[in-house]
């Protein structure tokens, strides 16, 4: 039986340790995360959460920049640790947050695409390299003539981010790992980059892992969404269903805090909110559910035991509230 092509992450845990005087404190930046991203048919998977929830750590694990303590990751049922690194990078390519940081300011911009082609040995002759650069730039809506011979500072953030995507595309990857690709961009350019991912998915069968803290763009492009909280994936399922009707109290809290660009739906009131949030490190150390100190629906069991995943339709929720649905 032929299995669906997919990228699957199984029970991955990453532990960071911190030395405090003589003792050593450990916390799990990514804690027992399991998720699958379909590669054929392609999908856009949105990974959302607050800062410090382990989203970027997970991205770094996927890109093999850091290695997990526990757990395995498979690309089309082959462990990614068994790949040659160039072979692996041919399948999975990153897009980073700040386009101005991902380019060397002293080198010409098209040189990066040229370098990638050389490094991956895709083409050798100059003419075929040029036509490849031309093609990949066309895919992201840019013209080779306007890019050729220019330095990064001559472009706007949106254009540079497009060039970063074009660079990733020359190797024809299966999956793009985009870590906050639009958070540094302006509102008017943001949506065009987000649309570009959508277009790449439809035209080039490219899956995207879209990591963001911005729920509204995640809702807009993602097919499925995973919500991260202090290393745990607490809710995972169809993007529209999750954000239209969030089940986990943390997802509900996130959705409640999103400000909408609509003056009729004002969310800032003078009512007192619960002050003094727990600091990040203590929430990581929390036994049981990590959200228990902020959760309005917390019960005693939440403090003692870590909830498992409960399935509701296609959704998985890591919360005791849905225990009886099992």
């Amino acid at each position: 039986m032929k299995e669906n092509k997919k990228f699957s992450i199984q029970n991955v845990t990453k532990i960071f340790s911190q030395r405090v005087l003589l003792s050593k404190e450990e916390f799990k930046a990514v804690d027992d995360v399991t998720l699958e991203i379909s590669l054929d048919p392609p999908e856009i998977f949105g990974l959302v959460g607050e800062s410090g929830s382990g989203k970027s750590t997970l991205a770094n694990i996927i890109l093999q920049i850091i290695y997990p303590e526990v757990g395995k990751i498979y690309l089309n049922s082959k462990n990614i640790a068994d790949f040659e690194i160039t072979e692996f990078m041919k399948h999975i390519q990153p897009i980073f947050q700040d386009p101005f940081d991902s380019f060397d300011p002293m080198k010409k911009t098209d040189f990066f695409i040229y370098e990638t082609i050389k490094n991956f040995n895709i083409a050798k002759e100059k003419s075929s390299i040029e036509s490849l650069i031309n093609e990949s730039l066309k895919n992201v809506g840019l013209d080779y003539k306007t890019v050729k011979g220019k330095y990064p500072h001559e472009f706007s953030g949106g254009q540079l981010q497009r060039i970063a995507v074009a660079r990733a595309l020359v190797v024809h990857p299966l999956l793009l790992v985009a870590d906050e690709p639009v958070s540094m961009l302006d509102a008017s350019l943001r949506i065009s980059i987000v649309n570009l991912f959508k277009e790449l998915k439809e035209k080039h069968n490219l899956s995207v892992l879209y990591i963001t803290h911005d729920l509204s763009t995640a809702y807009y492009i993602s097919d499925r969404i995973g919500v991260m909280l202090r290393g745990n994936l607490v809710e995972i399922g169809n993007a529209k269903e999750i954000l239209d009707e969030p089940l986990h109290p943390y997802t509900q809290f996130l959705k409640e805090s999103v400000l909408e660009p609509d003056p009729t739906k004002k969310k800032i009131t003078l009512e007192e909110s619960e002050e003094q949030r727990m600091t990040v490190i203590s929430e990581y150390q929390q036994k049981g559910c990590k959200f228990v100190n902020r959760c309005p629906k917390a019960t005693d069991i939440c403090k003692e035991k870590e909830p498992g995943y409960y399935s509701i339709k296609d959704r998985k929720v890591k919360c005791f509230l849905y225990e009886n649905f099992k």
Partner: protein
Amino acid sequence: MALLEINKINAYYIHNIQKTRAVENVSLSVEDDEIIGIAGESGCGKSTLVKTIYGAIEPPLYLENGSVIYNFKNSNSNANITTDNIPLFWWKKISYIPQASMNVLNPVRKIKKFFENLWRAHSQDLSFKNYQKLLSTHLEHLGLSVNILEYYPHQLSGGMKQRVIIGAASLFHPELIIADEPTSALDVGVQLDVLRLLLKIQKESKNTIIVVAHDMSVMANFCTKIAIMYAGNIVEIGKTQDIFSHPLHPYTKLLIDSLPKIGDKRGLKGIPGSPPDLVSPPSGCRFHPRCPYSFELCKKVAPMMKEFSPGHQVACHLLERGESNERK
């Protein structure tokens, strides 16, 4: 009389012979007891505009012409306050919450020291005892525990640091608070708390807040009036409600249409092109190369601000043409 009147200011950054026209021909009047938002893309001159208002004009920034007139209530001196002598009134009448303000705290000094320095530099007429009393009641009022004074900045989270800065900015009850991107570095939940704190301060002391942000949802939720900036010019000013329900300038329209919302998966379009370089901005209306409705006149003549309905001003030839057509 308006609290703040800005008359046709041009503020340029001058490096050698290169002139970056960051703010050009901007007029704005800010009333008492309102929250005015200045929205726009990065590099459109929002921060330069508020720096000019605050009087922090240091080379390479130069105020070429135009003036800013401050009409503070019960100011002791009758002398005209201009951008030259405004530093004397910093923190007392006008205070500024800079961008990335959580990084302004000195990492090797306790928060206590930060407030003490503030008092030494700006409010020597207050005795130390009275200052301490003021500080503790003020912090308590804002929901900050007095214990934080003994902390070092690294012991506080980003949101707490931002609250300390807001506490400092409102300590001497200034009439005007300028907040430059107060929430852009914060998480969604904390963002809401910080905006709530600012709103509380504004409602209680009935002062004016100028907020600079690129995030239109902060504008929609927080401001009573919005000024939209594009490439160094203000292109539209109006009440929040009017800007969002009847945007008149094509840039505002496209900007508002490009914002994704939860619960709406329809395809959205971004604004084509990218913001111009302010060293050599386009002729005429600066938005014309990206504007889908531009015509000949837009390339040649820069449009002036005109009032189309009470309190709603727009600078666009399209509307002037539309209006004259209606008259005929």
